[in-house]
Every structure is written in structure tokens, then in C-alpha cells.
């Protein structure tokens, strides 16, 4: 089953007929079974699904962190599939931003240095106006000189968001960004992510298993057993939960 997606916006990332198979023979695990999916520019998309549904794998493949067994992945104009390490490094540097669940910051650098890290690595100067805007949006102006150890979990994750935003990538991939945070700090981070999509046209793809988090997205794609099984536009926590329940039932019936 293939999800249909709104064609009104141009795709920032695309997966076509993507298969991902781990291991061989008896131990073979099929993580993705021919997933085709587009992620439009300037939209906030959440990928949901039960454990083992392949949602993280899909994101890793889209971001070029993992290779696909079959099919192609592209980001913007770039075909990711088949890129070598140098190509992938350049892709990550220029077109992709990451926010992870944990261990997002380098402990030796200050918040500001962490935010500017991708630009420093690439040897680029930040756009001062945009940097100001980002700092303003995440509300960290008075924390810029602090090291990660001196920041709360929520603040650390906001620094990670700012780092992903500051280089204006084609797309930001967020892997359970609120997984390690309490609900209040989580909500702040999610609000901030939504604002960056609404106000600054950033594209964000987020993997989560939390319906409340998914409700912040413009669209939710549901995965089960390596395939896209459903999607919701303008979701609410209730609709997401309902869909999830249905999926669980289907899986149980399927068993």
C-alpha cells in the first residue's frame, strides 16, 4: 500500500520503492518493503509506527546515514543513493540537519560553538541576521556561553535545534527529539520546531512514537511492518491515537 501525498508543494526529500534488508538466510529481516514517499518543502512531517515498524530505518535511509538495499532516495536535487563518503559528508554538511534523542552536543564546546559547528566544519560564515533570528526563536541568548553540562535537557535540545536550523538545510531530520525530555520541555521544543516551519519555511521530518508529539506536525505518515499504511493531514493527538490503535489491532489480527 502506498500513501498518496499532497502535490501542492515541491518535495524536499523523496523515497521511491525503497527496500531495506538486514542479514541473509534465516536471520534475514526486511525493515522496509518498497516504501515510496515524498516530504514536501516547508512542511512538518511526522513518521509514526509501532516498534519495529521501520520508521527509524526509513529516516536513516532518507538522511543518507544508512544505505538502501533497493530503490532510490533523494534530497532536493541530489540523489542520495550511490553517494560515496565524500558525497554523503557534503550532503550532511549542506543539505541536511539532525536532531537526535540524546547526545546531541559536543561537551567541549559552548552552546554558541555547538550551534555554529556545522558551519565551522564547512568553513562557512553564519548569516548574522539569520543567526540572530534563530537564537531569538529558541530563546537562548543568555545561555550562549554555557557548556552543555551547564544546560538543562530542554535547553540542550533547543541548542541542537538551533544547530540544525542555522545552516538552513534542505531538510531537518529529528529522531525522537522529545524522547528524553519531560512533557513541558518537550512541548517547548515541538512548538519551536513548528514555528520554524510556519515562520521560516523549514522542512522537518520527525520520527516519534508519541501521539502528542505527532500532533504538532502538519502531516503524519504511519508505518507498519516496513510499509506505509496510513496518513493524516492536520492531525490532532486524538486522531493520531485512534489511527495507532487501529494499526495495533490490524497487526494483532495479522498475527
Amino acid at each position, binding site marked *: 500500500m502506498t500513501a498518496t501525498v499532497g502535490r501542492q508543494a515541491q518535495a524536499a526529500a523523496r523515497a521511491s520503492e525503497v527496500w531495506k534488508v538486514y542479514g541473509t538466510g534465516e536471520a534475514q529481516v526486511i525493515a522496509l518493503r518498497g516504501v515510496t514517499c515524498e516530504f514536501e518543502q516547508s512542511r512538518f512531517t511526522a513518521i509514526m509506527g509501532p516498534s519495529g515498524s521501520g520508521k527509524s530505518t526509513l529516516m*536513516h535511509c532518507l538522511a543518507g546515514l544508512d544505505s538502501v538495499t533497493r530503490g532510490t532516495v533523494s534530497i532536493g536535487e541530489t540523489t542520495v543513493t550511490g553517494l560515496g563518503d*565524500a558525497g554523503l*559528508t557534503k550532503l*550532511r554538511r*549542506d543539505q541536511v540537519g*539532525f536532531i*537526535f534523542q540524546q547526545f546531541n552536543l559536543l561537551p*567541549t564546546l559552548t552552546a554558541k560553538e555547538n550551534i555554529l559547528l*556545522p558551519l565551522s566544519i564547512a568553513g562557512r560564515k553564519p548569516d548574522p541576521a539569520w543567526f540572530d533570528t534563530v537564537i531569538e526563536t529558541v530563546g537562548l541568548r543568555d545561555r550562549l556561553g554555557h557548556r552543555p*553540562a551547564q544546560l538543562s535537557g530542554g535547553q540542550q535540545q533547543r541548542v541542537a535545534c538551533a544547530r540544525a536550523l542555522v545552516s538552513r538545510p534542505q531538510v531537518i531530520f529529528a529522531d525522537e527529539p522529545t524522547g528524553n525530555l519531560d512533557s513541558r520541555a518537550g512541548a517547548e521544543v515541538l512548538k519551536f520546531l513548528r514555528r520554524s516551519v510556519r515562520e521560516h519555511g523549514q522542512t522537518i521530518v520527525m520520527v516519534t512514537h508519541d501521539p502528542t508529539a505527532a500532533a504538532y506536525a502538519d502531516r503524519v505518515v504511519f508505518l507498519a511492518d516496513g510499509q506505509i499504511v496510513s496518513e493524516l493531514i492536520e492531525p490532532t493527538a486524538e486522531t493520531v491515537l485512534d489511527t495507532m490503535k487501529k494499526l495495533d489491532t490490524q497487526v494483532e489480527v495479522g498475527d
Partner: protein
Amino acid sequence: MFRATLKSLLARKLRLILSGLAVVLGVMFVSGAFVLTDTLGRSFDAVFADAYEGVDVNVSARPKEGLSDFEREPVPAETVERIRGVDGVAEATGIVAADGARLIGSNGKVVTSFGPPQLGENWVGVSDLVQLREGREPQADDEIVVNAGLAKAGRVAVGDRVGVLTLEPKQEFTIVGIFGFSGGRDSLGGTNEIMFTTPVAQQLMLGQRDAFTNVTVTAADGVADDRLRNDIAAALGADFEVKTGAELSADASATLKDGLSFFNRILLGFAAVALLVGTFLILNTFSIIVAQRTRELALMRAVGAGRRQIIGSVVLEAVAVGLLASVLGLGAGVGIGALLAYLFGNLSGGLDLAGIAVPPAAVIAAFGVGLIITVVAALLPALRASRIPPIAAMQDVATPDRPLTKVTVAGAAVTSTGATLLFLGLGGHAGGDTLITILGGVLLAFIGVALLTPLISRPVVGLLGGIFSWWMPGKLGRLNSGRNPRRTAITAAALMVGIALVTGVTVILDSTKSSISGLAQDKIKAELVIGGSQTGPRPPTFDPAVLEKTAALPGVALVGGAYGDSAQVGDERTWVGANSDVSTLTQIFGARATAGDISRLGQDQMLVSSDVAASRGLSVGSTVPVQLARAEAKTYTVSGIYEAAELLDPITLPVTAAQGFTIPQPIAGFIQLTPGTQAADVLPRVETLLADSPEVTVADREAFIEQQTKPLDDLLRMIQILLLLAIVIAVLGIINTLALSVLERTRELGLLRAVGLGRAQTMGMITVEAVVISVFGALLGIAVGSGLGAAVVEALRDEGITDLVLPWADMGTMVGLGALVGVLAAVIPAVRAARIDVLGAIAHD
């Protein structure tokens, strides 16, 4: 607990091997030293047992009071007859055998020896041991036979006319025969032997007719050796020393073995350096392992393991590593001992090696040293491990930055203790063993500085890293190297030891060289100097007749030939000199009289320096008994006292006394030219005069100084090469630290790669971290080494080392070497870091 320990040990193979390698090297040197000495010792035993096999009893004169075993009076010829008269004696043979017979080879150069003696002997016929291989025995005064080893080394053959230097200047002989030894051997342990007819041997080697070095006796059938020994001793009286052949061979072997202890000390010295550096390495490795296993150890504590059990588990790991390293080190030590024994045998010209065996001492030392070093180094980390609270298993605790106060205070205390010991040792206030005090001081200074290093590392590493901060990977590398000051410090400290030793030795030797050169430049008022480089135990000498002939050359104002030896003066053994022209003391060496007349010296008079006069309470007119190596004891009267100076002998005897020196020929000659004479005009004429003295050359003063200081340069190169070993071990330490850091920071590296750090940049980051650590170590080493070197130079000021020379060029090289070491050490960890799988590193579990 035991099984858990073993499992975790196996899981950490690589890094334990890296740190164990240092112990392996140290143990290798320790056991190698024992194997070498044992093998060579048994080889010497065999040589002497062979050499004295045909001797049942040996008679020689009792050594004189204050003189060494080698400096015996000859045995009067009539003694041989007296021995023949003793019941039970089958045969008594008078033997001449003395060191100092030097053959001039076919290339016109003296055949040198690097240790074994160059014996001049009388031919007493063939025996079970000595076999004539070619030609015949010497019959005429100008005929000699030489052993096959010497003939090969000098490329001479039967029928050749050759020059031989002995107590007398060069004389020409015809080689009429070449002899070898039983078993097809060309020499006995590399000894060169020239055999003359008995009267010639007596004249040239002993300086007197009708005397022998010793008398060998064969017992009649059925007479026991020790019985005969007692009978002969009783017949001859107390002036003679009578020994059985077995006793003699044991004594001779023991004397040579004493000489071997020099090798032993060198090897043990390097073992000490390797083990010191290795201790740092092991300490570091175990600290990191404990830090990494914090959760695991806390879990063990949480499920009921006691503190002792935790300590036990870490110590057990150390024991396992120490045991393995000792076994490997012992194996390698046997190999290196055998190799060195082989090289030694070859270098000394054909010592027949006894089979290689592993003496129990080597095994005990190997395991003792290997185990103790490893366990002691692991003790601190083990204690730290036992202090991990069980709660750490539940928390995600980053190891907190512990304050450096304690370690810094300890460092300051240890450093100052070390400095105090050095001060005492170098200043000669140590009382007992000065060397041990100094070595202890150096060791404590190293440990103290290592303890202070974490504190120093912050600003210095920051400053050093500043160089790389323009580049993002460089900046990250710098920050990483400053991250764990203790780990950085101890890694750098391992490198420090090697670099400090090299720097210290260089400072001392360069200062010595500069002082000698400066002294010679300033104080020797001679345009030309006759002398040679000493390559063996004997200094080069020349024909005293050259001195008179040179003095007669046009343009030569003054010539002084210098003689020297150590002698028993009063009740003390001391260096005495003699000068062919005593006026050179004032004219060439600038001596100033403080009492009496120093421009003249009678047959029974002596001059002393003001130091000697003061310490012995001598004044003009005092009488002093002097026992020279080859003369009757004689009393001299002090006729003059000169101000003590570096170039002047403490005691100057009349030149006639030089005939009683071990080497009765001048070892240096100083030529002062008349004003206006060009040195280049006189030099070739002196060269012509020296044609028969191939051991020396004449050179202008600068070339002479160069020649005299060259051995120092050679020594320095040798020490530097050997100390490279310590640096190699330190490289292992840096690799170890970096590899562990890379492992610890896998996630961080994954994150960096995820946000766009390229492979080359990753490698650059690791390399910068390594270079910062190693250059820091090099700088520390240079600082500590300069300090130690300067302290030694300061202490030697009274010995005439007045210049302190800091070898800036060498220091620059060492900083460069430090950087290179960092780059090399970074290769493997950097490649590992660059290969880290991004997804695997960041995906949360």
C-alpha cells in the same frame, strides 16, 4: 569474580598488549643483561680453563702494595732454577707475557683492540694448546711469530717485515711463523699475541733482562697440584704468589667478568628507563579501563562485591598482564642476550661462545620486575575502582573533573624531594652512595614533574593548541587534548622521560665539549699538537726521540712531551704526570709558581699543585714516597708548588721517572713556534718525524681539539640512539591513549560526522590531539632535561666544566621529533576514527 576478571581481560586484549609491550621491553633488557653476562662469563671460563690447562702450578711475584694485580714485579730468572729444585716439579718455564705489543699492519696502521689485551710474549715452544700453523719458531732477535687472528686482522703473512710498538718505539721484525690454538681457534678470546725470542721479549715487554712475568710449572707424575703448590710456596718464601692452574684460571676469568659488569650496567640502565616509561603507560591504561568500566564495577558493587574484591579484580588483571609480559620479555631477553653475546664475540675477534643458557637469576629478575612494575602501576587505579559507589550503576555519570589540588601538592613535594636528593648527590653531600642518591633524585624528579603535569597541561596545551585553532578540526583536537588533564599529562610524561634524558645528556656532553675546547683554546700556547684518538684501553703513544728532533727544527721555540700514569703517592693512589721539558709548564700551560721553583726539576724532585699541597699538607722541602708501576719505590722532595689549573697534572715528576710508568712513552706533544713562523711550514716536517709512530698525528691546535672532543660526539650519538627506545615506548603510550579516546568518543565522532565532518577532517582532529600531547611532552622533557643537565654541569664546575651549553638546535629537533611522534602515533587511531560507522555510533540503543 575470577572468571569475570578474565573475561574482561580478554575483551581488552589490544590495549593491554600495547601497555604490556613496555613491560616486555623492560624485562627484555633485564633478562638480556643476565643472559649476556652468564654466556660471556662461561665463555671466558672456558677460554682460561683452556689457556691454563697445561699449567699445574704458577708462580708470580706478589703484587706491590697499592698497585693492581696487573702491575707485578717481574720474577728474577734465577727463581726458575730454584723452582726446578723443588721435589715433584717435572718442568718449570719462565714466561714473559705483558700487554702493549702493537703490530703495525700492512696498511701502516696499528692493529687495535677493543678490549682483549695485546700481549707480547716469549716463545716457549708448542704445546697441547699452542700449535704452529705455518713457518717456524723465532730464533733470531728480529724474528717473531704471531697468532693467526692477529695475522688476519693486520693482513700480514710469513716472511713479512713488520713494525711492532712495545715499551720501546717502533722496531722492525720478520714474521717467521703463524700459530693457532687447539680446536682450530685463531685466538684465545680475541687476544692478539706476538711472540719474540725470550731475551727480546724480556727487553721489550718488561724492560729488563733476566726476568719473567711468571713461571709455569708442570708436576711430575703422581704429584697433586695443591700439594706441589704448597711445596713451592714453602721453598720460595713470602715474596711470591703460588697458585694452581685451576685457581689461576678462575682468578683471570673473575677479573674479566668484573669488566663485563659494565655491559650489565648499561643494559640494566636501559631496562630502568623502559620500565619507568612503561609504568606510566600501565598506570594510564588501567586508569582508563577502570573509568570505562565504572558502570560495570558499580553493578558488581551493587550485587554485593566488596571493595577488596574490586581491588582484587583489577590487580588480578595486572598480574595476568605482568605475567604474560614477563614471559614474552624473558623470551626476547634470551634472544637479545644471545645476539649481543654473538656480536661481542665477533667484535672482540673470535671468542668461542659457550652455549646460551638461561640463568635462574634472569628468570627471577624477569618475573620479579615484570610483575612488580605492573601490579604497582595498577594499584592506584585499583584503589580508585574500589571507591566507585554502587549508585553509579544507576546513574549516567560522566566522570566528574576531580580537583587537581591533591595531585599537585604531591607533585610539588616529590619534585622538591628529588631536587634535594640531586643537590645532595651532585654537591657531594650524600655521604654514602653518590650515584644512588643522584639516580634516586632523577627518578623522583621525573615522578614529581609527572604529578605536576596535569596542572601545567591546561595552560600549555591551550597555548600549543592555539596554533591549530584557525581550523575547526584542529580546534576540536585541541579541546579534546585538554579534556582529561590527567590522561594527557601521564601520556605526555611518558614521552617526557625519554626526551629529558636525551636533553640532559646532550647538555652535559655539549657543555663538557665546549669547556674543553675553550680551555684548550685559551690555555694551550702551542701552535701544533701531537696526539691521537684513543680507541682502546691504551692511549696512543709516540717515540720520545721525536721530541728532541722536533725541538731542533727551525722555527720551533719549545717542545713539551707529556707522560702520565696513576701511581701510589704516599698512601693514596693518584694521577702523576711528567714532562720532557719542565719549562713547558710555564711557557705553554701558563703555570704560576706559588712556592719554590717550578722551572727546573731534579732527578729526586717533584712539583705539586696547590690543591695537592693543601690537601696533603706539603710544602717545599717535604718528602713523599712514590711507587710507580714499573720501578722501585722512591722518595721525592717537593721543589716547587704551582697554582692548580685544569691543564696541569696534580703532581709532576721528572721525565726520568716516566720510564717507570705503565706506558713509558709520551702520549701528547706540544710544539710552540717562534714568532713569525707559519704552522703550515713546520707541520710536514714533524709529520715526517712521526713516520714510525703510526698511532699519532700532528695537527694544529684546532684540529687537535676536534680530535680530542670527537669521542664525546660519538658517545652522545650512541646514547641518543639508545634512548630513542624510551621514545618508542612513549609512542605506544600515545597510540594507546588516543585509541581509547576514540573508543570513548564514538558517539561524539558519529555526531560530528553526522553534522558534516569529513573523513580527512576527522583524521586531522585526532592528529592534532596527538601532536598537541606529544609536543607538550617534548617541551616538558626539554625543560626537565635542561634543568637536570644544568644541575650536573653546575656540580662539575670544579672539575673544569665551566660553560653551560644549551643545545638549541637539538632542542628544536626534539620538538620536531615530538610532533612527528604525534603524527605517527595518530595514524591508527585516526584511521579507526574515520572509519566509524555514523549510524552505528549515534543510533541510541
